[in-house]
């Protein structure tokens, strides 16, 4: 097997107290570049060139010698913090280990230091968190622990590889604030890897844009945003600032779906034989209406119950209380004749296109399958119909005979959309349709959804935590928090003047589009 060159001729430098952001899309080589600094690659990846820290060459040092540099001079935090922590050890054990591997402290002193560190990264009740295991922490909390661990030996360079990508917007804003404060406090050099121009606008002093393993452009953040020289940088920026789609109409006509007083609870597992069974309320007394050919956005953070609402409206789950009506008729039950018709006309698109397709089934076959199930048209015509649906989402005949593995993430999501479209749905639920995709690819998918909605006149429910997506696509926004609707309204109006404090927080936390909008102390930690 030949070796693949993933990163080529990449050079940059970074000073104390400075933030350099490397920005680029999936597989652009930005993470590999960051990992090269400490030689943290998986086996089989090798780096050449030079890494110099305060005059000392790092690349090529033995693992033993590098071990002294890692964590002490240069530390790193990763994209997903919970899996980056050892699941069988407490926070305390992992923090103390990090502290004691570089400083000669007793266990007790190290424990005291761990408490100080946790406090400094904004963790309340640090005593309680010390004895916690990683799975008991939220994503944001775990990332704070990771940051505390990274700072334990007072490094001069902190590398943060997509530190907030896996987090909710409000938590992202807090973590970014924290990183900025710590950088100033410790006079850190901060190297941030990101795919999100919003995060870059928020954080960077200088920006390096990576594309296909090379740095195609580098410069001060304002220059990159105001006068991007490279076409790829221009594309990245354009993806963030899409034209606002003009709403086709107001909420005209009869409602397609109406949910009244919807509630859904899940029982928690009992820990003891006679313990009373507690419940998690996922959806709590929600009234929701979706009009004919209306695009509604459902926004909220993870665990807010927004996906459950989507499933209730689709009839995939039955509510514990309340009812769903479709065209004024009650939601049919499985087995009733109307149930089959409903399954055909109500479709859903999932977040992760990689797991939503059968890896061992050819693309055309997968798109044709729903037609076979519902016995639509003559069997001989079905491949043509499937091909037409693929054509509609911008995929030509070259993909028909391929397997999903040969397609990019954006292409796969198009296939998923085509598979839903082939049944000519009246109602399409898109559950986080672009969050697994790169920004510029996501932008294309959004354009596609908007165009398809115009062409087919279906109703769309966009479930998302991504405010910029919701803002550009939907007619009406519904904000959910802890299973309840806290605010709803026409998109432009709601974004311009959010009434509920939570909507305000969400909107304030959304990444900015230009570095000049940096919010200094606009947010207080929640």
């Amino acid at each position, binding site marked *: 097997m030949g070796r693949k060159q993933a990163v080529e001729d990449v050079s940059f430098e970074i000073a104390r107290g400075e933030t350099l952001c490397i920005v680029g899309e999936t597989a652009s080589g930005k993470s590999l570049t960051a990992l090269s600094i*400490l030689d*943290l690659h*998986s086996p089989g990846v090798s780096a050449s060139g030079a890494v110099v820290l305060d005059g000392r060459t790092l690349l090529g040092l033995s*693992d*033993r010698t590098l*071990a*002294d*540099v*890692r*964590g*002490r001079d240069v*530390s*790193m935090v*990763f994209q*997903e913090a919970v*899996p*980056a*922590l*050892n*699941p*069988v*050890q407490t926070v305390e054990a992992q923090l103390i*280990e*990090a502290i004691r*591997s*570089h400083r000669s402290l007793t266990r007790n002193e190290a424990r005291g230091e761990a408490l100080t560190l946790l406090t400094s990264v904004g963790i309340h009740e640090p005593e309680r968190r010390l004895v916690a*295991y990683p*799975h008991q922490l939220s994503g944001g909390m775990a990332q704070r622990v*990771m940051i505390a*661990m*990274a700072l334990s*030996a007072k490094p001069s360079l902190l590398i943060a590889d997509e530190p907030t990508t896996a987090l909710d917007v409000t938590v992202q804003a807090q973590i970014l604030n924290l990183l900025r404060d710590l950088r100033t406090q410790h006079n850190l050099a901060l190297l941030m890897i990101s795919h999100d121009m919003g995060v870059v606008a928020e954080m960077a002093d200088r920006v390096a844009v990576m594309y296909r393993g090379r740095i195609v452009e580098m410069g001060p953040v304002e220059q990159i945003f105001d006068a991007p020289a490279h076409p790829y940088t221009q594309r990245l920026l354009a993806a963030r600032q899409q034209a606002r789609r003009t709403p086709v109409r107001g909420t005209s006509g009869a409602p397609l779906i109406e949910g009244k007083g919807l509630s859904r609870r*899940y029982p*928690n*597992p*009992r*820990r*003891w*034989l*006679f313990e009373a069974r507690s419940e998690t309320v*996922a959806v709590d007394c929600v009234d929701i209406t979706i009009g004919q050919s209306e695009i509604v956005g459902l926004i909220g953070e993870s665990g807010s119950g927004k*996906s*459950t609402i989507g499933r209730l409206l689709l009839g995939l789950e039955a509510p514990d209380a309340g009812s769903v009506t479709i065209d004024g008729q009650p939601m049919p039950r499985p087995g009733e004749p109307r149930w089959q018709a409903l399954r055909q006309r109500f479709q859903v698109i999932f977040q992760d296109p990689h797991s939503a397709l059968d890896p061992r089934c050819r693309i055309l076959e997968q798109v044709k399958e729903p037609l076979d199930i519902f016995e639509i048209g003559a069997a001989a015509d079905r491949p043509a119909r499937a091909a037409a649906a693929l054509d509609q989402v911008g995929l030509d005949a070259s993909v028909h005979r391929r397997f999903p593995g040969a397609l990019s993430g954006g292409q796969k999501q198009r296939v998923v959309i085509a598979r839903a479209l082939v049944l000519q749905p009246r109602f399409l639920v898109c559950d986080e349709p672009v969050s697994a995709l790169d920004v510029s690819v996501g932008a294309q998918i959004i354009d596609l959804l908007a165009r398809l909605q115009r062409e087919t006149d279906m109703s769309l429910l966009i479930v998302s935590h991504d405010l910029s997506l919701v803002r550009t696509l939907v007619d009406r926004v519904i904000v959910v928090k802890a299973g309840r609707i806290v605010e709803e309204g026409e998109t432009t109006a709601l974004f311009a003047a959010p009434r509920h404090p939570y909507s305000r927080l969400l909107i304030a936390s959304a990444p900015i589009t230009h570095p000049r909008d940096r919010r200094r102390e606009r947010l207080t930690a929640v």
Partner: protein
Amino acid sequence: MGRFIVLRTLRGLLTVWGLLTLVFVVLRLSGDPLEALLGDDAPPEMVDYYTVLYGFDQPLWRQYLQYFWGLFQGDWGQSFRDGRDALEVVLERVPATLQLGFAAFVFSLLVGIPLGIVAALYRNTALDRFAMGFAVLGFALPNFFIGIILILFFSMTVRWLPSSGTGTWAHLILPVVTLGTAGAGSIARFARSSMLEVMNRPYMRTAQAKGLRRPRRIMWHAVPNAAIPIVTLLGFRLGDMIAGSVVVEAVFAWPGVGRLLVNAVTARELAVVQAVIVIVTITMVTANLLVDLAYAWLDPRQREGRNERKR
């Protein structure tokens, strides 16, 4: 946790009951126990006498109820041969089997786990291939074959070790190696894949980024995580040690439960076979319960929300 143990114990009892019922029916339908006991040419009066004595004249369901009623009162039935209590006959053989099974289990752990870890750490090197070659041989070769080869070499050719019997530690070596090799092989393969999987986890990269040296990363971060799936396998292996002893005890004339079972089945010693089944099943169920407890101890995520589902 309390609820968990109670549930598992109840489920274990259910397993014992189901298995006993199966064995009870199969043994009685597959042949006449008195024929095996008395021979073909026994006089009819004698056959009648024993038929009534052991209750074979009763309908099957009544025999079944009587047997279980007896069990509840501590009466496990009698051995046909010498009229001794069946449980007593079995229990006197248990120590020998436990000795063999436990020693073989420890042997397979001591060989299998280090072998698997080393193979994972030196992946795709000669060391890895050697270790995995050994593992494949270990579980591909049948017990009796390994046993006979070992006897041929160590007892016949070089005459270092006894080929059968019991008494000294030297008697233990060949049966233990024979019984433990298959276990060591599958444990090694499992330990290897478990280690490889863990080595690629994000927290291993964190450990490296923290500045920990390789030995510490492996012993403190990789091994404890890799141990979790291995423990599951150990439960099955522990059971296999007892079940596998049937063959090994026959090859090495080891006076344990396994050999007793073989003899008892041939002789249609109904009560003895049933008692052996109860004992073996209880061992299996207990082993699995212990594994689940060890699981909870090793993995903090298991301690709470056992069936927690993600949404």
